[in-house]
């Protein structure tokens, strides 16, 4: 004899129905999200394939001049703004932490906290956020304008793959240069904290340097730089993807740049949270 369904099975059924109804109502957005992620994954695969062929096979020529141009544009031109942001971050961190640490009589520990916060977290993240506005928006606008002016179509018409010509140099340049910029950002951020601690908080300079060196381990640098590389790849991919999907003339190009910055920042913070959780679990 079968048992009649109780009140708990009714609740489970109604919960499942609610989830189903929720998903059904948002099927268009879900579909668009899946298409977006799928499109990005496809572009990433294609980018790796073309980069591999260009760098390690002799059947196609690798565009070194184009890569250098993009590295200068993405990296060299961003150095100034990254330095300004990071020096302020060092100053802010030191001043914000000082009162609390002073309460415990540990003011000189500003050096440890600034060092670890900048190298593990704020160096890569803020450099990536600056780059998403500085380089990401500009890549999206440039690629979008090329789509609108039929340049991308002209590339295909001449049997030249747009991923190879447009995405690969921008992807590699952003990924490599963000790592270089993060190294610079790490030093500048720590230097900002040093200046504040020495000249405002009266921490002896040698003590600050000794404590920073003692607090920072190689793993801190590596985790920061790994994150930076992934951030760079994500910014370049989102910017190129948005650029390739521009429609509607100049307004569409404007929308692509805005969308690139917004989506990049959300993605960067999400990925950062994921990295932090993984590193925490692994004890790195």
């Amino acid at each position: 004899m079968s048992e009649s369904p109780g009140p708990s099975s009714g609740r489970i059924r109604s919960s499942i129905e609610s989830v189903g109804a929720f998903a059904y109502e948002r099927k268009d957005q879900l579909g668009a999200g899946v298409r977006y992620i799928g499109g990005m994954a496809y572009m990433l695969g294609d980018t790796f394939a073309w980069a591999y062929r260009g760098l390690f096979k002799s059947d196609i020529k690798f565009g070194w001049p184009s890569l250098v141009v993009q590295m200068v544009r993405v990296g060299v031109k961003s150095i100034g703004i990254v330095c300004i942001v990071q020096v302020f971050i060092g100053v802010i961190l030191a001043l914000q932490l000082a009162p609390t640490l002073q309460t415990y009589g540990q003011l000189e520990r500003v050096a440890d906290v600034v060092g670890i916060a900048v190298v593990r977290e704020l160096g890569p993240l803020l450099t990536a956020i600056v780059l998403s506005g500085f380089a990401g928006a500009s890549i999206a606008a440039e690629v979008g304008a090329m789509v609108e002016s039929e340049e991308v179509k002209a590339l295909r018409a001449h049997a030249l793959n747009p991923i190879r010509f447009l995405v690969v140099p921008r992807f590699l340049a952003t990924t490599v240069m963000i790592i270089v910029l993060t190294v610079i950002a790490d030093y500048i951020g720590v230097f900002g904290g040093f200046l504040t601690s020495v000249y405002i908080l009266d921490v002896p300079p040698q003590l600050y340097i000794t404590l920073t060196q003692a607090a920072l381990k190689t793993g801190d640098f590596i985790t920061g730089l790994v994150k930076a590389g992934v951030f760079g790849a994500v910014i370049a991919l989102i910017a190129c993807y948005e650029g390739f999907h521009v429609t509607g003339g100049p307004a569409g190009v404007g929308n692509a740049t805005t969308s690139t910055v917004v989506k990049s920042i959300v993605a960067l913070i999400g990925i950062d949270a994921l990295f932090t959780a993984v590193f925490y679990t692994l004890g790195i």
Partner: protein
Amino acid sequence: MSEQDVAISIRNLEKSFTKADGTEIRVLQGVTFDILRGETMIIMGGSGCGKSTLLNCLIGEYTVTGGEVLYKTKKMETPRDLARMSEAELNDLRMSFGILFQSGALFNSMTVADNVALPLIEHSYVDPSIIDIVVTLKLQQVKMLAHRDKMPSQLSGGQKKRAGLARATALDPETLFYDEPSAGLDPVTSAAIDELMMDLSKKLHVTTIVVTHEMDSAFRIADRMVMLEKGKVLRIGKREDFEAIRDADPHELTSADDRLIHQFLNGESSGPLTDAEGMTEFEKLIRAES
């Protein structure tokens, strides 16, 4: 018409687009005609008739919904359907044709000479000095040698099209496509581009396909013409056939199609193409969408 004369054979070509709300728009419906080797074929029709979509299907930019686009080139002696080609085969085919886009579509980050050189650098392994000679020849052909070191932003509309044409002919194509070559040009520059197109067609012995709604230009350069209306072939024939309809007294035209073609070719505001307010089907569609 013998089989070997056909360069491109279009068979029952269908192309549909799905709008955001899920409705389907059939832009091309059963388009069928042949393009002969060495001829200049004009594809014409009003706004929204599907001529640009047809061009995009012919160059492999759009995937067709149905039907076939069969190409026969020096390399591919047996006609091959574009839709069944692999990416590598499609690229091989693309190397056998050149395209002049409406805006010229020059790569803005490169000089005129670099634009022309790019297909040669990418698709050949010849010495840079030879590439330089070929670029010089191609630019001479379109009377743009004096502008070889200029950036596209420094060129006029006509000059951009000339430079685009030099790039399109860089690999000595068998087929040349032109998308609205006279659009945005003054009548004198437009006539000069037409002469250039005819000159290249003769010198290079290429098959020329021109999408346009500039009738003066079309009648100057055409061997044959095809008129599209609502995504279908309304009429295909020799230039002289269309000239006869254009010059005829509309009251003497008995066929509805002839009256429609007459109105289009003469650019008249009233006739079978327009309603009582003088609006075409396309304009009504745009108004309904907005």
